Protein backbone atom coordinates (compact mmCIF):
# COMPACT_ATOMS: atom_id res chain seq x y z
CA UNK A 1 0.00 0.00 0.00
CA UNK A 2 1.30 3.39 -0.97
CA UNK A 3 1.76 5.64 2.05
CA UNK A 4 1.94 9.01 0.28
CA UNK A 5 0.67 9.13 -3.29
CA UNK A 6 0.67 11.91 -5.83
CA UNK A 7 -1.11 12.37 -9.13
CA UNK A 8 -0.13 12.87 -11.81
CA UNK A 9 3.43 11.56 -11.90
CA UNK A 10 4.22 13.64 -14.97
CA UNK A 11 2.61 16.87 -16.09
CA UNK A 12 3.50 18.69 -19.28
CA UNK A 13 1.69 21.93 -20.02
CA UNK A 14 1.94 25.27 -21.73
CA UNK A 15 2.82 28.59 -20.15
CA UNK A 16 -0.18 30.42 -18.82
CA UNK A 17 -2.22 27.32 -18.06
CA UNK A 18 -3.64 26.41 -14.66
CA UNK A 19 -2.94 22.96 -13.26
CA UNK A 20 -3.39 20.98 -10.07
CA UNK A 21 -1.38 18.26 -8.37
CA UNK A 22 -3.09 15.98 -5.88
CA UNK A 23 -1.63 14.32 -2.81
CA UNK A 24 -3.08 11.75 -0.48
CA UNK A 25 -1.64 9.99 2.55
CA UNK A 26 -3.05 6.91 4.24
CA UNK A 27 -0.79 7.06 7.29
CA UNK A 28 -3.24 8.90 9.50
CA UNK A 29 -0.83 11.81 9.81
CA UNK A 30 -1.90 15.27 10.91
CA UNK A 31 0.56 17.32 8.88
CA UNK A 32 1.23 17.53 5.17
CA UNK A 33 3.79 19.45 3.12
CA UNK A 34 4.66 20.52 -0.38
CA UNK A 35 8.29 20.75 -1.51
CA UNK A 36 9.80 21.89 -4.79
CA UNK A 37 13.00 20.37 -6.20
CA UNK A 38 14.44 22.42 -9.01
CA UNK A 39 16.84 21.47 -11.78
CA UNK A 40 19.80 21.99 -9.46
CA UNK A 41 18.27 19.38 -7.15
CA UNK A 42 17.68 21.73 -4.22
CA UNK A 43 14.64 20.75 -2.18
CA UNK A 44 12.71 23.67 -0.74
CA UNK A 45 9.65 23.61 1.44
CA UNK A 46 6.70 25.56 0.09
CA UNK A 47 3.77 24.92 2.40
CA UNK A 48 2.71 22.92 5.41
CA UNK A 49 -0.77 22.15 6.69
CA UNK A 50 -1.66 20.76 10.08
CA UNK A 51 -5.21 19.44 10.42
CA UNK A 52 -6.27 21.43 7.36
CA UNK A 53 -4.74 24.66 8.67
CA UNK A 54 -1.84 26.42 6.97
CA UNK A 55 1.16 26.56 9.31
CA UNK A 56 4.12 27.12 7.00
CA UNK A 57 3.97 29.39 3.99
CA UNK A 58 7.38 30.13 2.53
CA UNK A 59 8.04 32.88 0.04
CA UNK A 60 6.03 31.36 -2.75
CA UNK A 61 4.22 33.32 -5.50
CA UNK A 62 0.52 33.61 -4.82
CA UNK A 63 -0.07 31.77 -8.09
CA UNK A 64 0.49 28.69 -5.93
CA UNK A 65 -2.48 27.86 -3.75
CA UNK A 66 -2.56 24.78 -1.55
CA UNK A 67 -5.90 23.32 -0.53
CA UNK A 68 -6.55 20.73 2.13
CA UNK A 69 -10.09 19.34 1.98
CA UNK A 70 -9.29 16.98 4.86
CA UNK A 71 -6.18 16.01 6.75
CA UNK A 72 -5.45 13.11 4.39
CA UNK A 73 -5.30 15.30 1.30
CA UNK A 74 -3.27 18.32 0.30
CA UNK A 75 -3.61 19.54 -3.25
CA UNK A 76 -1.52 22.16 -5.01
CA UNK A 77 -3.11 24.42 -7.58
CA UNK A 78 -0.90 26.56 -9.79
CA UNK A 79 -2.28 29.45 -11.82
CA UNK A 80 -0.69 31.06 -14.87
CA UNK A 81 2.17 28.60 -15.10
CA UNK A 82 5.61 29.99 -15.93
CA UNK A 83 8.73 28.36 -17.32
CA UNK A 84 10.41 28.67 -13.92
CA UNK A 85 7.74 26.51 -12.35
CA UNK A 86 9.23 23.48 -14.08
CA UNK A 87 10.46 21.22 -11.29
CA UNK A 88 9.65 18.10 -9.35
CA UNK A 89 7.06 18.68 -6.65
CA UNK A 90 7.04 16.40 -3.64
CA UNK A 91 4.28 15.95 -1.14
CA UNK A 92 5.13 14.72 2.36
CA UNK A 93 3.37 13.98 5.61
CA UNK A 94 4.28 13.59 9.26
CA UNK A 95 2.55 12.68 12.48
CA UNK A 96 2.51 16.25 13.71
CA UNK A 97 4.57 19.32 14.37
CA UNK A 98 4.96 19.22 18.10
CA UNK A 99 7.42 17.17 20.04
CA UNK A 100 11.06 16.74 19.42
CA UNK A 101 10.88 15.30 15.97
CA UNK A 102 8.44 14.00 13.43
CA UNK A 103 9.79 11.94 10.54
CA UNK A 104 8.46 13.08 7.18
CA UNK A 105 7.28 10.56 4.59
CA UNK A 106 7.63 11.72 1.01
CA UNK A 107 5.60 10.87 -2.03
CA UNK A 108 7.11 9.80 -5.38
CA UNK A 109 7.02 13.29 -6.82
CA UNK A 110 5.31 15.00 -9.75
CA UNK A 111 7.54 16.18 -12.55
CA UNK A 112 6.06 19.37 -13.96
CA UNK A 113 7.34 20.64 -17.29
CA UNK A 114 6.14 24.01 -18.54
CA UNK A 115 6.71 24.65 -22.25
Amino acid at each position, binding site marked *: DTAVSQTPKYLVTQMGNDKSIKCEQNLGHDTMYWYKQDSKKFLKIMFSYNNKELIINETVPNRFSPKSPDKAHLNLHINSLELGDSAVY*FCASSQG*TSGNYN*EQFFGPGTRLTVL
Partner: protein
Amino acid sequence: LAKTTQPISMDSYEGQEVNITCSHNNIATNDYITWYQQFPSQGPRFIIQGYKTKVTNEVASLFIPADRKSSTLSLPRVSLSDTAVYYCLVVQGGYNKLIFGAGTRLAVHP
Protein backbone atom coordinates in the same frame (compact mmCIF):
# COMPACT_ATOMS: atom_id res chain seq x y z
CA LEU B 1 18.24 27.38 11.71
CA ALA B 2 21.82 26.14 11.72
CA LYS B 3 23.47 25.85 8.33
CA THR B 4 24.98 22.49 7.44
CA THR B 5 28.08 21.74 5.39
CA GLN B 6 28.84 18.33 3.95
CA PRO B 7 31.00 17.00 1.09
CA ILE B 8 29.48 17.36 -2.34
CA SER B 9 30.34 13.85 -3.38
CA MET B 10 31.99 10.64 -2.19
CA ASP B 11 33.00 7.40 -3.83
CA SER B 12 33.18 3.98 -2.25
CA TYR B 13 33.21 0.30 -3.12
CA GLU B 14 30.86 -2.48 -2.25
CA GLY B 15 31.43 -3.91 1.21
CA GLN B 16 33.20 -0.86 2.59
CA GLU B 17 32.07 1.31 5.47
CA VAL B 18 31.20 4.86 4.46
CA ASN B 19 31.35 7.81 6.82
CA ILE B 20 29.80 11.11 5.79
CA THR B 21 30.58 14.03 8.05
CA CYS B 22 28.42 17.10 8.36
CA SER B 23 29.30 20.31 10.17
CA HIS B 24 26.68 22.46 11.86
CA ASN B 25 28.61 25.00 13.92
CA ASN B 26 25.61 27.11 14.86
CA ILE B 27 23.38 24.32 16.11
CA ALA B 28 21.02 25.44 18.87
CA THR B 29 20.27 23.66 22.12
CA ASN B 30 16.88 22.38 21.01
CA ASP B 31 17.93 21.36 17.48
CA TYR B 32 18.07 17.75 16.31
CA ILE B 33 20.31 16.25 13.62
CA THR B 34 18.55 14.27 10.94
CA TRP B 35 19.69 12.43 7.85
CA TYR B 36 17.66 11.66 4.75
CA GLN B 37 18.48 9.59 1.68
CA GLN B 38 17.23 10.27 -1.83
CA PHE B 39 17.43 7.91 -4.78
CA PRO B 40 17.04 9.24 -8.32
CA SER B 41 13.42 9.95 -9.25
CA GLN B 42 12.22 9.31 -5.71
CA GLY B 43 11.32 11.39 -2.70
CA PRO B 44 13.71 11.63 0.26
CA ARG B 45 13.57 8.91 2.87
CA PHE B 46 14.38 9.27 6.56
CA ILE B 47 17.48 7.37 7.69
CA ILE B 48 18.31 8.36 11.23
CA GLN B 49 18.01 11.13 13.79
CA GLY B 50 19.85 12.01 16.96
CA TYR B 51 20.54 14.68 19.54
CA LYS B 52 23.90 13.65 20.99
CA THR B 53 26.27 10.69 21.40
CA LYS B 54 25.53 7.70 19.21
CA VAL B 55 22.37 6.39 17.62
CA THR B 56 22.15 3.14 15.70
CA ASN B 57 19.35 1.54 13.72
CA GLU B 58 19.13 -1.25 11.19
CA VAL B 59 20.35 1.00 8.40
CA ALA B 60 23.02 3.31 9.81
CA SER B 61 24.75 4.80 12.81
CA LEU B 62 24.94 8.45 13.72
CA PHE B 63 27.83 9.78 15.79
CA ILE B 64 27.47 13.17 17.44
CA PRO B 65 30.32 14.58 19.58
CA ALA B 66 29.68 16.38 22.84
CA ASP B 67 29.85 19.86 21.30
CA ARG B 68 27.30 18.80 18.63
CA LYS B 69 28.98 21.02 16.03
CA SER B 70 29.33 18.10 13.68
CA SER B 71 27.88 14.66 13.08
CA THR B 72 28.91 11.59 11.12
CA LEU B 73 26.60 9.23 9.31
CA SER B 74 28.09 5.76 9.10
CA LEU B 75 26.85 3.24 6.56
CA PRO B 76 28.25 -0.23 7.22
CA ARG B 77 29.19 -2.45 4.28
CA VAL B 78 27.62 -0.45 1.50
CA SER B 79 26.17 -2.03 -1.59
CA LEU B 80 25.44 -0.68 -5.06
CA SER B 81 21.90 0.11 -3.94
CA ASP B 82 23.24 2.63 -1.43
CA THR B 83 24.17 4.94 -4.29
CA ALA B 84 22.09 8.02 -3.53
CA VAL B 85 22.20 11.58 -2.24
CA TYR B 86 22.46 11.88 1.54
CA TYR B 87 21.20 15.01 3.25
CA CYS B 88 22.22 16.21 6.67
CA LEU B 89 19.61 18.47 8.26
CA VAL B 90 19.32 20.35 11.52
CA VAL B 91 15.72 20.40 12.67
CA GLN B 92 14.50 22.85 15.24
CA GLY B 93 12.83 21.01 18.08
CA GLY B 94 9.07 21.41 18.08
CA TYR B 95 9.05 22.96 14.62
CA ASN B 96 9.06 20.38 11.86
CA LYS B 97 10.54 22.43 9.04
CA LEU B 98 13.18 20.62 6.97
CA ILE B 99 15.79 22.78 5.26
CA PHE B 100 17.65 20.70 2.68
CA GLY B 101 21.13 21.61 1.48
CA ALA B 102 22.91 20.22 -1.54
CA GLY B 103 23.56 16.88 0.10
CA THR B 104 26.37 14.40 -0.50
CA ARG B 105 26.20 12.34 -3.64
CA LEU B 106 27.51 8.87 -2.75
CA ALA B 107 28.52 6.58 -5.57
CA VAL B 108 29.18 2.94 -4.70
CA HIS B 109 31.23 1.03 -7.23
CA PRO B 110 31.47 -2.74 -7.79
